């Protein structure tokens, strides 16, 4: 294989725990993929090394790369491993402990000895300044600069490299906070500093403080990482701009990521959803549930009316989160918009066990990459979901990854018999099918968290499945939820990296703006939108996008007067009039009915926040044709167990290229380099013109 001299290419690099996935995209939409081992000591080594390998295999040189887009786990890992910068916090006098108290909640019932996560700033470095702004933005106590200077003195004497500042009510009057920032810049040059008003000018002091602190805690680490990545690319002849995927599904410049690293915490998972969104718009499906299942976790997200869904109710470092929306207190609050994902601890590596009462359980313990499933023969002894899938015949019992990894499936079979089938008094196949089913149930909770939890009926959606294990489970999961159609995109195992290449530059803004909708000051409202617009224009043009290519998305957060949680309603992209506000209120009533089952049209409605997104447009091509699916078919059969209703069936094993526009009846197993697709007997599979496998699940 080879690329073309003189042509331009774009590159996506997505880091996972085990592998780094690299995708190179040509101007014609053709793309090449490569998986290399991740290099956890310095992930940039693996990325740059893998990129150079792929370039040389294709006989291209670094100068032909137009842009590098990176999905990174550096921010999330820094938090999970407690390896952030030593950070100081400056608060209003009397409130240094808000960060430690958090919201008081315990994430499990009846958990007497639960220990909350340690605050990211130790108490000695949580410092107070004498000032107070009142709830209307008025100054109650003027800022005492001496108190700032004593705080600065203590920070100077410490080894803190980073400073967060969050004063009460700064979202309505930021002057005090800005002044503290100026003095820090003047007296503590070179240290990283984050003001709350710059990352989250939004009401609720714990959430705003925590978000600001997380940003400061990540700042020096992410800056170091990004600088090193850019330099290594530069040294190896790749001079193109490096951009970073944000948690909200947009990309930003490396420099901006260094300033606001709190925006890139969920960088990796967001990319898969962005890729799914692109598939949806290509094939004309506006309502999709994305389902990404890997080795240890599974994630679900919702695309509705052709739009991604975001949430700002998010806790990091809380472990697996089923629904980010019920305040649970297991992690650090980060209230910037993230693509709304629900995550559960079930993947191919999840360990299967039987509890004391005799119920079959899957996860949350995982065999991970090492030792991995028993059948991999790397020393694993506890049966996993993957072992059950091998026993069922879903996964090739001899080898995977196109024959590169040989399996010892007899080991997995024995482990499953001894630890699951015998204790339950079940036949081996039935117990394996039981494991498959219980794993599905766990993953269904993730899908419900993004659908029924918000009043959305999953039957109105198509399931788009990817990740190493997603296509094995997708059909049964779809059937349980009443979903009629499943789509498996090309190269499902590196789908997230593909997503990096379709993401657009974005910048999200929020500004708290309180007031009853009836009689709102539209002049002030329009002015705030104008301010956000000019800010966004400034950022994106400075990153090289043309102003004519920038589009805007506006939403307004509304609620019934007295409620604490808002619903975001899309607002028109023009000067907003009183009539437009009434339209927004009507749309809010309807959305409330749809989400919660009731509306109250006589109740007053208030505006809480204005949100705005600046969207740039990269003019380049989108990935349409993978080069990795050209493997010819093996045309074999094997016995596959499809549960008690269908039993054990001799099932054809095919490759993606064996499929066509014509519907082919199941059962069949589609084996690919990086994934396996299971098609049940009463289902039909076909291939669309973009190479997606489309499975009709056989539901009326």
């Amino acid at each position, binding site marked *: 294989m080879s690329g073309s001299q003189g042509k331009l290419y774009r590159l996506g690099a997505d880091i996972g725990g085990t592998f780094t996935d690299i995708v190179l995209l040509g101007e014609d939409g053709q793309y090449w993929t490569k998986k290399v081992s991740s290099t956890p000591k310095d992930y940039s080594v693996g990325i740059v090394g893998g990129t150079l390998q792929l370039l040389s295999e294709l006989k291209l040189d670094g100068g032909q790369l137009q842009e590098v887009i990176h999905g990174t786990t550096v921010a999330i890992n820094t938090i999970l491993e407690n390896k952030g910068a030593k950070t100081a916090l400056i608060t209003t006098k009397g409130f240094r402990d808000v960060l430690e108290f958090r*919201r*008081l*909640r315990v994430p499990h019932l009846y958990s007497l000895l639960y220990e909350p996560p340690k605050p990211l700033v130790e108490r000695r470095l949580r410092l107070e300044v004498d000032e107070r702004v009142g709830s209307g933005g008025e100054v109650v106590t003027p800022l005492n600069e001496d108190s700032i200077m004593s705080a600065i003195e203590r920070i100077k004497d410490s080894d803190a490299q980073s400073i967060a500042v969050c004063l009460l009510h700064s979202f309505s009057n930021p002057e005090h906070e800005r002044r503290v920032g100026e003095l820090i810049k003047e007296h503590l040059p070179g240290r990283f500093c984050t003001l709350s008003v710059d990352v989250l000018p939004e009401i609720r002091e714990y959430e705003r403080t925590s978000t600001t602190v997380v940003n400061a805690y990540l700042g020096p680490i992410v800056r170091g990482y990004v600088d090193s990545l850019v330099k290594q690319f530069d040294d190896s002849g790749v001079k193109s701009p490096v951009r970073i995927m944000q948690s909200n599904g947009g990309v930003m410049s490396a420099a901006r990521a260094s300033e606001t690293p709190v925006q890139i915490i969920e960088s990796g998972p967001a990319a898969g959803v962005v890729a799914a969104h692109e598939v949806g718009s290509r094939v004309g499906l506006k309502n999709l549930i994305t389902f990404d299942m890997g080795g240890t976790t599974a994630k679900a997200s919702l695309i509705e009316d052709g739009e991604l869904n975001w949430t700002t109710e998010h806790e990091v470092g809380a472990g697996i989160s089923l629904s980010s929306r019920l305040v649970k207190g297991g992690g650090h609050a980060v209230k910037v918009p993230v693509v709304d994902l629900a995550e559960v601890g079930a993947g191919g590596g999840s360990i299967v066990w039987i509890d004391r009462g005799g119920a079959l359980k899957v996860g949350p313990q995982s065999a991970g990459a090492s030792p991995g499933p028993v059948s991999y023969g790397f020393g694993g002894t506890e049966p996993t979901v993957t072992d059950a899938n091998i026993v069922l015949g879903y996964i090739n019992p001899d080898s995977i990854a196109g024959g590169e990894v040989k399996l010892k499936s007899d080991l997995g079979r024995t482990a499953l018999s001894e630890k699951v089938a015998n204790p339950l008094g079940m036949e081996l196949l039935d117990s394996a099918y039981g494991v498959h089913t219980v794993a599905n149930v766990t993953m269904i909770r993730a899908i419900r968290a993004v659908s*029924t*939890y918000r009043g959305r009926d999953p039957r109105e959606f198509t399931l788009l499945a990817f990740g190493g294990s997603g296509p094995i489970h997708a059909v049964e999961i779809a059937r349980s939820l009443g979903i009629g159609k499943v789509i498996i995109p090309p190269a499902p195992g590196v789908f997230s990296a593909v997503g990096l290449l379709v993401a657009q530059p974005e910048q999200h803004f929020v500004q708290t703006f309180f007031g009853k909708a009836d009689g709102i000051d539209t002049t002030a409202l329009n002015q705030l939108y104008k301010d956000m617009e000019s800010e966004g224009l400034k950022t994106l043009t400075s990153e090289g996008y043309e102003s004519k290519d920038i589009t805007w998305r506006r939403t307004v957060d509304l609620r*019934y007067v*007295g409620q604490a*949680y808002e619903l975001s309603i899309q607002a028109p992209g023009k000067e907003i009039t009183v009539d437009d506000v009434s339209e927004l209120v009507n749309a809010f009533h309807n959305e409330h009915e749809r989400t919660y*089952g009731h509306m109250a049209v006589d109740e007053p409605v208030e505006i809480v926040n204005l949100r705005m997104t600046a969207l740039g447009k990269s003019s380049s091509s989108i990935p349409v044709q993978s080069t990795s699916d050209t493997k010819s078919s093996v045309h074999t059969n094997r016995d596959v167990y499809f549960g008690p209703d269908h039993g054990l069936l001799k099932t054809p094993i095919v490759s993606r290229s064996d499929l066509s526009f014509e519907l082919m009846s199941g059962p069949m197993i589609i084996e690919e380099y990086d994934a396996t697709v299971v098609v049940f007997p009463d289902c039909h599979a076909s291939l669309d013109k973009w190479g997606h496998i489309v499975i009709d699940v056989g539901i009326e």
Partner: protein
Amino acid sequence: MLPRDIDPITFEVINNGLDSLVDEMALTIMRTAYSGIVKDAMDYSTGFCDRDGRTIAQGLSIVLHLGSFPAAVASIIDKYKDSIYPGDVFILNDPYTAGGIHLPDIYVIRPVFESDRLEGFACTLAHHTDVGGIVPGSNSTNATEIFQEGIRIPALKLYEKGVANETLFEMIATNVRLPRNVLGDIRAEVAATIIGEREYLRLVKNYGADEMRRHTDALIEYSEKLARDEIINMPDGKYEFASYIDGDNIDTGPVKIQVKLVVESDEIVVDFSGSSPQVKAGINSPLPFTQSATYGSIRQLMDPSIPNTVGFSRPIHVIAPEASVVNASLPAACGARGITGFRAMDALFGALAQIAPDRIPADGEGGNTIVSIGGYDSSSEPFAFIDLFAGGRGARPTCDGPEGLTHPGSNNSNTPVELAEVETPVRIEQYGLIIDTGGAGQFRGSLSQVREVRCLAEEGVLQLRSDKRRFRPYGLNGGEEGNPSLNILNPETDDITLPAMGVATMKKDDVIRHVMASGGGWGNPYDRVPEMVFDDVWNEKLSVSQARTQYGVVINHQTLELDLSATEKLRSDLR
């Protein structure tokens, strides 16, 4: 083990379905409620009961509420028997004619039908901002009869066959100070029951109604089996402990909660005989609330993965003498009975510590203090600021008591300062820890917290419900007691100490300071690792002088250096 005829896979599927259903209900309330105490402090609960009113799932909500659903549903079944119809929604709050636990906690319960056959009940309860009575917020400790505490709602139909009972809505709205909030919160509860019904019927559709019944029956038996397995491993014997409420502000004597826990084979009898007779002030606990406190305490010693059904409480038997502070009879007032529930749990933990000394922490802050200020704002609109102030735990056998976790009987959240100030005429002047206050021990209890609230309205009625001033949080295994709680009016000027419970008037710019009790210590303070003492000094949780006095640890004032040899010498002299 599961019964032979239950498929373990379907069993797990249904169990998962029930768990997510009740969390989905909880989420609906949080996101649609109007009152701070519901939406921000999260003082509400959700559950699902089967057709016989037995709990089969509980949402992530308040422990002290959760054991009370069976009594509430039983009062509906007893009263309405065969006249429960599809589309009905029940409402109740009265402890004496229905299964309520105090008037502010309003239950909204929807029977769920499949083809006209009753299959279960979607249950919610929420603490309402106001239900009338003699103080705004309806949690007066000064009421002496339930008739002074607000509107009593027996088990009534808020909707019958889908039709709203407008008379009842109007009756409620007329009797409360903040009808918009109360009706808004009731609507949130109703919405949650709609979600519960929808999701339960989805399970029924997948598995069939009969199959669901078989599985939920099995689920109850399964959790009972697991609970019995836990209890049989506890050493048989009698374990006694008493805890005290400082006084009720009407009669001055302490109120005693006596508990005797008898473990025999796989059952536990919890006997509250010897507890004080019911008192005049509103701190009397109705029986369902005492039962809830009991189940919630013992449950903390069990494997957390046991399904949250009524099954786990079946081997636990509660004896509570009638007309006592733990089993109130008409007309006892019970608005502030939360305090008695918390004290009952503290007494139970004291007894359980004798069974499992390695797993039970020392005593904590005593459950949330309630500071409420109500009245009329500058535009004559009524307001009620109700602060559930909480978050100090006792030291544990393995680590310090965390700062910022509620009492184990609760799981409420704090009210954001900025929201409170935007929505009510108050300014919160301070919210923080107080140095040197943690109960000393090898492991330290959490520090006291302080919150100061300034009244910005012309006048407001202040209601305080706190405790643990006279009877301080106990230490365990040689750990010191925690520090007492304190209420001060205008600390910077008048400096008036207010009683732990009671009512006062606040004028504009008056400030109420509440200091929460701190956690008790665990183990001998002289056994505390000197580096941990140093960390506390470093983080300004302990002063250099108290490091010496309380822990025998020597730290240089100037350099903040830890002197290990001087510490060793001092400690050996002190021992």
